[in-house]
């Protein structure tokens, strides 16, 4: 198992470029990859900027299917060994773009997925939004959200006491532990593998 390369997929919902949300996402990814390397696991990190898929996400909500690049993104996300999800906080909660993306993910496809949450906002007064809005969303999807979620306010980027970096490192270790504890990625790509035989369906009717 130690020789397997693990895949961390980073989903960032920042809208501006450059974005502090992306900055936080990159730090969380680096900390998680470092911690996995310490545990003897190579890691591949793939970053998804939702801004690039904003129109496709809305189209998928309207048509019921994701196409092209967005379909590939969804496959990447559901096939990851661990997810790092980072959203800016808008009007008390995660951004609409972030929620729209979550809404088009098959709700059963993320069960038991290790997830690290991050958020950015103007002031620290919003930091609990991570725990009262973002965490329940991912709990509903039956993901395994690590205990530390990282909030970065504008002030954090100018702080001298490295508090943000300590939180990032701790969160990265927690995600690494959850990912390392997971069995190696499952190989089956049969989308209908779970379909019951019809005799079973009849019996259950």
């Amino acid at each position, binding site marked *: 198992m130690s020789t397997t390369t693990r895949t961390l997929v980073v989903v960032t919902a920042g809208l501006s470029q450059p974005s502090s949300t992306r900055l936080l996402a990159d730090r969380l990814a680096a900390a998680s990859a470092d911690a996995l390397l310490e545990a003897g696991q190579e890691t591949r990190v793939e970053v998804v900027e939702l801004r690039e898929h904003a129109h496709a996400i*809305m189209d998928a909500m309207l*048509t019921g299917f994701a196409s092209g690049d967005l379909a590939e993104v969804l496959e990447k996300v559901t096939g990851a060994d661990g997810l790092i999800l980072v959203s800016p906080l808008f009007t008390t909660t995660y951004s609409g773009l972030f929620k729209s993306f979550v809404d088009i993910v098959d709700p059963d496809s993320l069960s038991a997925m290790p997830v690290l949450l991050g958020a950015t906002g103007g002031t620290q007064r919003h930091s609990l939004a991570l725990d009262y809005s973002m965490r329940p969303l991912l709990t509903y999807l039956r993901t395994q959200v690590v205990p530390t979620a990282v909030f970065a306010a504008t002030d954090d980027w100018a702080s001298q006491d490295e508090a943000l970096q300590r939180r990032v490192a701790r969160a990265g270790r927690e995600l690494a532990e959850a990912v390392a504890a997971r069995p190696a990625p499952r190989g089956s790509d049969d989308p*209908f593998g779970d379909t019951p035989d019809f005799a079973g369906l009849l019996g259950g009717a």
Partner: protein
Amino acid sequence: MQFGIFSVSDVTTDPTTGRTPDDTERVRSMLTIAQHADAAGLDVFATGEHHNPPFVASSPTTLLGYLAGVTRNITLSTATTLITTNDPVRLAEEYAMLQVVSGGRMDLMMGRGNTGPVYPWFGQDIRNGIPLAVENYALLRRLWTEDVVDWEGRFRTPLQGFTSTPRPLDGVPPFVWHGSIRSPEIAEQAAYYGDGFLHNNIFWPMHHTKQMVRFYRQRYEHHGHGRADQAIVGLGGQVFVRKNSQDAVREFRPYFDVAPVYGHGPSLEDFSAQTPLTVGSPQQVIDRYGAFVDDVGYYQRQMFLIDHAGLPLKTALEQIDLLAEEIVPELRRIVEAKRPADDVPLNPPTHAERVAAASAAGATHVGDGFDDVTGTRAEEVAR
């Protein structure tokens, strides 16, 4: 291969004129469209079933029964018949009646319906969609294949000594398709009974359709009805055609942009690339639809949606003429040349072919109760 049209019966304002037909006009336009398709030589007309506005097709067998009397050759079908919210006893009676009235010139397609509020209006719950489809269809088959039925299930009143009349024409029930977009359980159901499977892929990318059809074919073979390539498959489709491609795009775009379901979403160009929607010249339709066989294997029925989104009746009739004259003959030649073997069915089974098959299996007597495909009794199958 059969080529036909299906209507979802939507009453939609024509966005280019602001005019909205009333329900009566819409029903009559469906009758005109079906008769025109018959006269033009298309193979199938199918009506949807809906119990909520803006749709008018609430009573398919009334519509199809009339059409049976005023058309000559076209096969009358449904797209879809709600196997979840209709009482299977009423379905057995109504569609056996339609079969007798039409002289067997009909089949039907089962579907669950995806509008949550419709279920409680008929005493059901959408969360039971799959179990309802399974139980109701198992009962429907018994009502058609057994003269006297004792039955007890989860979703309706038990039956003791019940006989559904009229008995099916020549003792052979109508051919049944099962339609589903996303639920492999329904493909499994179609495969289990050796029925047809229609993937109405009009809003879906081909890679998804391909997976569902492959699954149905594998399961059809698994359940012993024949080889995977002999399974009976149908696809949906959506086209808007003019002699010149640019004219088709210019005329259809205002309808596309505000259409129910996909309007206000992806562009016409993106949606055309992602789904079977083809807006262009007859040759573009021939090229596109002539290649679907390469994705799903040779299939037996191709349906087109041509009368939705507020398109005027005159336009729908022109689309039928373009299909019948400029597209279907050439498309049929192309796809039938790709049929892999003579024992792969050219078309879905007709009533006469089903009677002959049942006769060969010694099961034409009304009430024999033998499944003409598997040769087993329905009650054994259902157990």
